[in-house]
């Protein structure tokens, strides 16, 4: 895989991961062009695009577009499944994920992505294992955060992202498998 982009229906970039070295200018150009091309496509259309000499595989989940660029010999369908698995991971981690989760916690989304894809290749496809790895790192983080907060003496009402996810207008990302009981936040 060459890169992965997440952007909203309004064309706002939400996440970008580049697995090939490109200059910032080039990245911006590609992003702009691709966002435009993909947004212009109608819902019933094919999820694959030939774009320059790359193949673009994209899929829309609620208001978010997930878009991957792969090389010619790569398998398009499995790339769609990579996207899907990533969404499943996000969903499980955040507990029915919505765009807002990704906006406000994009660094978490990156961590999950890094645990799932490494150097553009799927490294761990088991949902359980990916989340376990993230969880371990999180655990460490939460502990330290907690200690720090004690020292600072301030009380933080909603430390974790989903802390008070009283949904104001969350748009749930619809995915095939119903999300299991939402990931229990490690709150000390």
């Amino acid at each position, binding site marked *: 895989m060459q890169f992965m982009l997440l952007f909203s229906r309004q064309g706002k970039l939400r996440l970008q991961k580049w697995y090939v*070295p490109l200059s910032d200018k080039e990245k911006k150009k590609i992003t702009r062009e691709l966002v435009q091309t993909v947004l212009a496509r*109608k819902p*019933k259309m*094919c999820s694959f695009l030939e774009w320059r000499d790359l193949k673009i595989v994209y899929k829309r989940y609620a208001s978010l577009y997930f878009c991957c660029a792969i090389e010619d010999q790569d398998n398009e*369908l499995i790339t769609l499944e990579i996207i899907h698995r990533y969404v499943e991971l996000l969903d499980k981690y955040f507990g029915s994920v919505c765009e*807002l989760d990704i906006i406000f916690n*994009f*660094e978490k989304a990156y961590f999950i992505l890094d645990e799932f894809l490494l150097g553009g290749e799927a490294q761990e496809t088991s949902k359980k294992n990916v989340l376990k790895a993230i969880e371990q790192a999180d655990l460490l983080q939460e502990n330290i955060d907690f200690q720090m907060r004690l020292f600072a003496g301030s009380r933080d009402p909603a430390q974790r992202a989903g802390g008070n996810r009283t949904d104001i207008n969350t748009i749930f990302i619809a995915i095939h498998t119903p999300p299991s009981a939402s990931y229990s936040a490690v709150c000390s």
Partner: protein
Amino acid sequence: MSDVVEKTLTALPSLLSLDSHPGSAKLSSTSKLGNLIRGITELTSKHEEEKLIQHELLAIKEQVSSPNTTMMKELMVRSIYCEMLGYEASFSYIHAIKLAQQGTVLEKRVGYLAVSLFLNESHELLLLLVNTVLKDLQSTNLIEVCMALTVVSQMFPKDMIPAILPLVEEKLNHPKEIIRRKAVLALYKFYLIAPNQVQHIHNKFRKALCDKDPGVMTASLHIYLQMIQENPEAYKDLTPSFVTILKQVVGGKLPMDFNYHTVPAPWLQIQLLRILSLLGKNDQSTSEVMYEVLDESLQRAEMNHNITYAILYECVKCIYTIHPKSDLLEKAAKCIGNFVLSPKINLKYLGLKALTYVVQQDPKLALQHQMTIIECLDHPDLIIKRETLELLFRITNGQNVTVIVEKMLEFLCISEDDHTTIDLVGKVAELAEKYPLKYNEWFIETMNTVFSLGGDMMQPDIPNSFLKLLSEGFDSVEEDRKLRLFAVNSYIPLLRGEPGKLPQRFLQVISWVLGEYSHLREDLEPAEVLSLLAKLLDMKNSSSETKSWVLMAMTKLCKGGADASVTQEVSETYSSSLDTVLRQRAHELQYLSQDPELRARVLPRGSCGNFAFVSEALAAGAAPYKPPHQRQEELDQSKALSLEPYGLSLPISMSSCSITDRQSPTLLSMSSGLSGDTLKLDGIKRVWGREGYLAQREPVEEAAQVEVPSPIQSPGRQGEGDSLHSQTPTQTPTPEPEQEKQQLASSLFVGLASQSSVSLMGKSEPMPQRFRRKAKGQGLGSSFIANEQISSSLISPPSAVDNLLCNNLLDSNNASELAEQTSQLSQSLTTANGTCHAEAELTESDTKGCNPALRRDNCVVAAGPGPHNDPGRLTEVCLDSYLPAELSGLSHSEIAPLCANQSLNLSACHVQKEDSLILVVFIMNSSESAIQQIPAGEVTSYSVAVGQYSLTVKRPAVHVEVVGTVSYQLPAGTSQSLQFSYKVPLTSFIRPFVVSTEEYGTMWLSFSHDTKQNLTLINDNQEPLTATLNALKKKLQLHVVEVIGMEGIVACRLLQDLPCLMHCRVNAGWLAVWLRSPVPDLPDCLIYHCQRALQSL
């Protein structure tokens, strides 16, 4: 921090009301990032956003340099966010590295993330990270090691690899699987960016491949794929290992963790399939090792899910890449068919792609799907359209090139994507240049469109080779002259029109051609050409390159005299040009126009094609020139799956050979001898047959060839029947758009069918596409009325996929091929009541197949023994008693009323005989008077005539419907007719088939058509398998051959000679049924009936 909380709280009410700003919804934290995001969503203009971000960046910048490190993590996240929005935050790069270096574990994590997002491999700051990575790799904290390995496998300065390589290598022995896996991926990264750095540790890769953890092994496959791509020869010895791994994966030997939606390790499977295809390419012995596992993969992937399609697709690609094996190819072709016909657009796209890969090996496949391809050509999604064109490009030959090019040009007109335009223009030009001779004018016109559409984006070799073609010419001088003249003729109006709109490249071509060849047109004054060319020079948007081409052309044209004034003016203008080339040209023009003698020597007419130096260079050993299309072809060949034929072991290679020798179109042939050697193409319309072009006219010819089957009793009368069969049945006219498609299909796929007549597997199928129909009347003078009444409205295709299929058939075949005339009422005169009519009339009936799962031309041939005519006056009839005596002992279905009018009552039933199914039609006269000219002669008042017709099935369908007409004459002399239809389920034709297990085994392997499905098990007290099988046996008359444990084998046959085998296995509460038969649609039909049978229990 309390002020932040306060701010948030005060903002809360307003946020709640702002539904249109999703960003404001989540109060994720009191973080400044939250504030920033919310702030941005509330802005209305880009300008405001810019201001806000700049402000934010300033604030971040200030804070990062202050010693308050507790905020670092949060600051980093904010600058990542700003960068994502497209604002540069380069000041924070160094802080990101610092954070990764000095921070606590959690800060490190963010630091590393920021580094990997901010920097790329070549960024100089990355060098500062090396030490941090070194330190972390040695850390005892697993999480730190993981983070270091993650960042290393994403980006690492090439030159610094040796510094950390030993540490990464060491990690290959780490007890934790996750560390080993990441280390392997890091090495993969190193291999990609600096292969020679990791050359010496190839044995370590092998160790990773043999790792006890499948995850590590999977990771190592990335490296192997890469290495095998570069040098497949060196890794042939690993083939059996890869095959074994794949076998284990497919067999479900991996831990559940690796499953993805119940499919075992699909990523691993695909990776392995890709490796295998590389290893097996052009290598028979290696390929042989993998046939079995490929077959297994094909069969295992049965679930209807994207992921299995992904595996199937890879499998098909692999099968077509490695040394071919016929039965695998057959299955792969079937898979491709499923893809192409799928209603899911993604699969359709991949199907087209796969077709494009294989079409040169196997043009028959494209032919089979021609109607789908035509539909895809009109698809609203340009991507599909584009892929279809790619496919057509591959099957272009001398006969269909014009249509295909036309389609491509149409696409070019609507395409907006530069990359596509460049590519397509190149392809059109390539095609046009490949076949220029046949269609001079077409060639020039096509190239004109190419030049105007392709504009200045096209590859520069297109105009060059076009000019070369024009100048070098072909064998015939006369042809060359015509071609050039035509070019000139087409350019003059273009220049007279609005040349300003033409692309520069085109103008250059035009000026060159006019300079060289405008003299060919005799009515054209050079002066006029010169003034047209001069006009080009005055245009604002002409580039200086174009101008020099124009000046060159003018130099060739000027002769002094009348045109002198124009040239003079031009040369004067440009001899003072700032552009040196133009100035040079202008001077040349000036001098040469004044000295005709010199001009004749410098620029002799028609000299442009002679390059003496070329032959000199060739003699000196230079490589010969290759025309672009040849180069392109070579390039394509190296890129695509192996397209050249392998040996001669298979008929396939013959077909791929023949694509190159294009025959000239054969004449229309009306030969009726076709039926003998035609190949069954499963309802595919043949457009181009052995004998020639069959398109369009085909339905008529078909009908003309139809023969009516002779009744069994009168074989001697065949000659007479043949004399009758030439009547053309009336046809329902095909709707206009359908016809267009049909025509398009025939023009696109012309020249392909000749190859397709070589069957892929070399074995001819038992069913001729055409069917025969022979009619015989007994009696005194017989006449024959053929009423073909099948129209598309009569056929009701049940499912969407089949709908498509069925429509396709209709499009292409028209009535006669689809549903066949089948039963036919023959008559003999009854002696009972003696009246016999000289004018007996034969009425023929049609059978139509209504059948959900198949391509149908089910052909039921009927032959009827003589009907009985029982006299008697009955008001209430017990029709049972009218059953012919010889049938009365057999079981018959319920006698069902068919239709009635005031004078006739029709009823029917079917009787199962060992070798056939007898349809018995009861015709009851319910009127007061005798009715004549019922096939059987006269039926006196209130009596019943019985006709019986033997039905056999040639092509299975779920239901067979017999349609018939009874024509009769009332005593008053008026002719009337009554139509009826009768539906028989396929199960009535099924008979038990008694075989031994061994026979079953051999037959199983030899049958090629199969289907699989899961059926519900009957759960009662008994053993479920036996219970289910018994139920099926009872309902469908199957023969249970043997039941072994959880598996059972069952056999049946369709009447006498068409067997179908069934393999049942109990699997997770389901009965997995696998049907095989030599007859294409039989398994599908049977599975349908099995389902129904079990549902009805």
